[in-house]
């Protein structure tokens, strides 16, 4: 892999940009690999990269039914934060944030991680209690998160409306300064390039149609649209399609897949300097380097694999955005789209071994998987390589739904009394 740098750019500028290499190769699939990863999103490609880099396992294929990074990796609103309540969650998300910081250099690919701060708004007494509980827990877990008054919140994000006349006035905010955004496509491409350079095969347009198991139960490989590919170990990292794939191996999952929409505005000069989220009015917003306001909407209420959702969902989202930012009503929605998110009963992911020997699953990230990408890939690679979870992902088992040891971040946000 030829290194990217400002010197490389200057060199190529001199010779008409003719010398750039393919960022990743597109080999024909081999008949067998040590590890097959299903799903070439950020989590899957990250898993392959860390298998190669940290565990020396390079005989790896990442299979993708479409184009790499084309699922939720390329469809999310790129928010990064780790201010989760429970130790388990703070552990895995903060592991990711630590990897984000330095990922560009590690991959030699500018993923544009920008710690511009994530500010979560409180609109009532209950929000204050909930956010302060997070702040206290985060501090003792070594995760930065601080309380802001409404005035401090406005200073941090000038277009924010903190008028007490608002329907749900801002009464405070929790700010994680290390939170921020990154460029989603670059994450997929950066991992793909770095993994490919270490010998990983990335095979696009290759749909998995079956998971083959030996009579004794263990995984032996996958049936694909390009034929059978043998594998000693298979990792399923397929987000919304996890239930479908795991079903091929006879494992039923505690998952449901929902449409999640997002939209961007036309690009404008810098106006929103950070990420702003509000659970009470249901909206989150940031501004991309290109100038588009990036706005996340909610899920539709029904399960679906259609990658589309209803207009009324966007409607509610923009209501909320314009409630927080009344100055934006003259802005225009440029593009909207949908993804398929797989949601677990406790809204926390599953990164674990499965009842099937040689089969591993990384799923259930719901609406917030992007932020975890490096951490998830990193510990999932460990889980596959060592056939045992890393301490960080050890709590994120499948068994917790049987035993009741849930990691219920949604419940922790609780409901208004």
């Amino acid at each position, binding site marked *: 892999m030829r290194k990217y740098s400002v010197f490389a750019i200057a060199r190529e500028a001199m010779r008409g940009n003719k010398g750039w290499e393919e960022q990743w190769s597109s080999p024909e699939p081999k008949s067998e690999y040590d590890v097959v990863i299903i799903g070439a999103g950020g989590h899957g490609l990250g898993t392959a990269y860390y298998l190669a880099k940290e565990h020396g396992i390079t005989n790896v294929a990442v299979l993708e039914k479409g184009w790499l990074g084309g699922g939720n990796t390329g469809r999310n609103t790129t928010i990064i934060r780790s201010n989760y309540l429970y130790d388990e969650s703070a552990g895995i998300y903060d592991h990711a944030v630590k990897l984000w910081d330095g990922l560009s250099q590690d991959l030699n690919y500018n993923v544009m991680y920008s710690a511009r701060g994530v500010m979560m708004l409180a609109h009532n007494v209950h929000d204050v209690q909930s956010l302060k509980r997070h702040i206290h827990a985060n501090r003792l877990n070594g995760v930065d998160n601080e309380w802001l008054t409404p005035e401090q919140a406005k200073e941090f994000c000038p277009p924010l409306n903190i008028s007490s006349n608002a329907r749900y006035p801002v009464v405070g905010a929790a700010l994680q300064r290390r939170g921020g955004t990154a460029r989603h496509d670059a994450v997929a491409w950066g991992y793909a390039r770095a993994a490919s350079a270490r010998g990983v095969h990335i095979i696009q347009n290759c749909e998995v149609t079956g998971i083959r198991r030996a009579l004794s139960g263990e995984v032996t490989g996958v049936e694909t649209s390009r034929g059978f590919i043998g594998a000693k170990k298979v990792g399923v990292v397929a987000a919304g*399609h996890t*239930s*479908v794939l795991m079903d091929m191996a006879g494992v*039923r*999952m*505690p*998952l*449901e*897949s929902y449409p999640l929409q997002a939209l961007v505005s036309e690009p404008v000069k810098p106006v929103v300097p950070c990420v702003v989220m509000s659970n009470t009015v249901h909206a989150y917003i940031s501004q991309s380097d290109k100038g588009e306001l990036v706005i996340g909407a909610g899920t539709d*209420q*029904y*399960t*679906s*694999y*259609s990658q*589309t959702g*209803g*207009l*009324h969902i966007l409607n509610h989202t923009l209501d909320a955005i314009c409630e927080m930012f009344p100055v934006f009503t003259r802005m225009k929605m440029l593009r909207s789209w949908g993804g398929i998110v*797989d949601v677990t*009963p406790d809204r926390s992911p599953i990164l674990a071994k499965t009842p099937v020997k040689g089969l591993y699953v990384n799923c259930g990230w719901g609406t917030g998987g992007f932020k975890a990408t490096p951490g998830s890939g990193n510990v999932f690679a460990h889980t596959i390589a060592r056939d045992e979870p890393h301490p960080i992902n050890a709590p994120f088992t499948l068994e917790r*739904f*049987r*035993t009741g040891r849930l990691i219920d971040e949604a419940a922790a946000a609780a409901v208004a009394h």
Partner: protein
Amino acid sequence: MLLIHCPYCEEERPELEFRHAGEAHIARPTDMAAMSDEDFEKFFFIRSNPKGVIYERWRHVHGCARFFNAVRDTVTDKFVMTYKAGEPQPKKLPGAGK
């Protein structure tokens, strides 16, 4: 916004009048307390989440307030049919080839 046929009201109404209520035909066991942990997990947490035909529950919450069942394709979001709660899971779907 989907258009949903309420089998009680016998008309199509916009999705805003309805609330989705999860997978259908997962009956609560009569002898609940005696279930094994595994069976409880299957009952309460495991979902089929199919890509294709799903049997699901809806409630016409801002209408007749009744719960009913629907058959929908999760790829196209098109409804195949709806039917009243308590009616058996249809074996043959309208429009099905075989």
